């Protein structure tokens, strides 16, 4: 079993609460990653990335649908996300670090909008869930939260 029952229940409950608004939050997460981690824009040079962009909103909706799919197929993530894995690794060649950065921005977004629900346990459950999504999307990557600094000259 990919997620322990308590983590699974927490994520499912939150997703139910988010309802049809998941796209709003994934769009905000995209807006945040473009501002906080500007190198992420490299994958979206073909889009209008200005605040409120309909194209960013459309991409946010795609991300939302993928995450909602993942929430409902927790026992079969690698298979469920195989087409997206192919797309992101072989066609788009996304550096796996950006999945972690986007997930961090999504956590920031959810924490902002649902502070009362964002207990330490919920935080932990979401991190575990998103780590599984990232593993299924980008098998060679590590854990979210392990963010590489922008412009760090280490």
């Amino acid at each position, binding site marked *: 079993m990919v997620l322990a029952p308590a983590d699974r229940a927490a994520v499912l409950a939150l997703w139910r609460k988010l309802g049809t608004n998941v796209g709003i939050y994934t769009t905000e997460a995209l*807006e*945040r990653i*473009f*501002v*906080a*981690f500007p190198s992420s824009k490299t994958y979206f040079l073909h889009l209008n990335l200005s605040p409120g962009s309909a194209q960013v909103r459309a991409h946010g909706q795609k991300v939302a649908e993928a995450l909602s799919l993942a929430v409902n197929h927790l026992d079969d993530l690698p298979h469920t996300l195989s087409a997206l894995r192919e797309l992101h690794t072989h066609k788009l060649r996304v550096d796996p670090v950006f999945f972690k950065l986007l997930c*961090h*921005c999504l*956590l*920031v*977004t959810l*924490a*902002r*909008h649902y*502070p009362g629900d*964002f*207990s*330490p*346990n919920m*935080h*932990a459950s979401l*991190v575990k869930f998103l780590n599984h999504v990232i593993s299924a999307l980008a098998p060679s990557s590590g854990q979210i*939260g*392990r*963010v*590489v*600094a*922008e*412009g*760090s*000259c*280490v």
Partner: protein
Amino acid sequence: MVHFTAEEKAAITGLWGKVNVEEAGGEALGRLLVVYPWTQRFFDSFGNLSSASAIMGNPKVKAHGKKVLTSFGEAIKNLDNLKGAFAKLSELHCDKLHVDPENFRLLGNVIVIILATHFSREFTPDVQAAWQKLVSGVATALAHKYH
């Protein structure tokens, strides 16, 4: 060396002025221990860390969290010289405690998330960006002694 624009400094200090360092510090360290359980290894002497509620209520976690965030506050007064501000702490964490620098980044991101929960209206993408730069700069400064 990290450079902060005037706007970034304002975004950081403006929000910092509203932070309850004692509460937020305890919460930050507590969440680190809950969400990234291997970090508990550094706090074996803290007593009961057996559950999220035990961790969040643990007085030693709260006290140490306050210490950690207080030093963040010192960093904010020294944004132009984070390496200097954290030189001694870098020695402690790297040479004595042997903490993997990745964990500094984890804590930095937990702090960002906590700010988002407490200041949802103010925590715009630009404000988040300034804070990401800060926590990244602090993590780098803390890891300096490894290089």
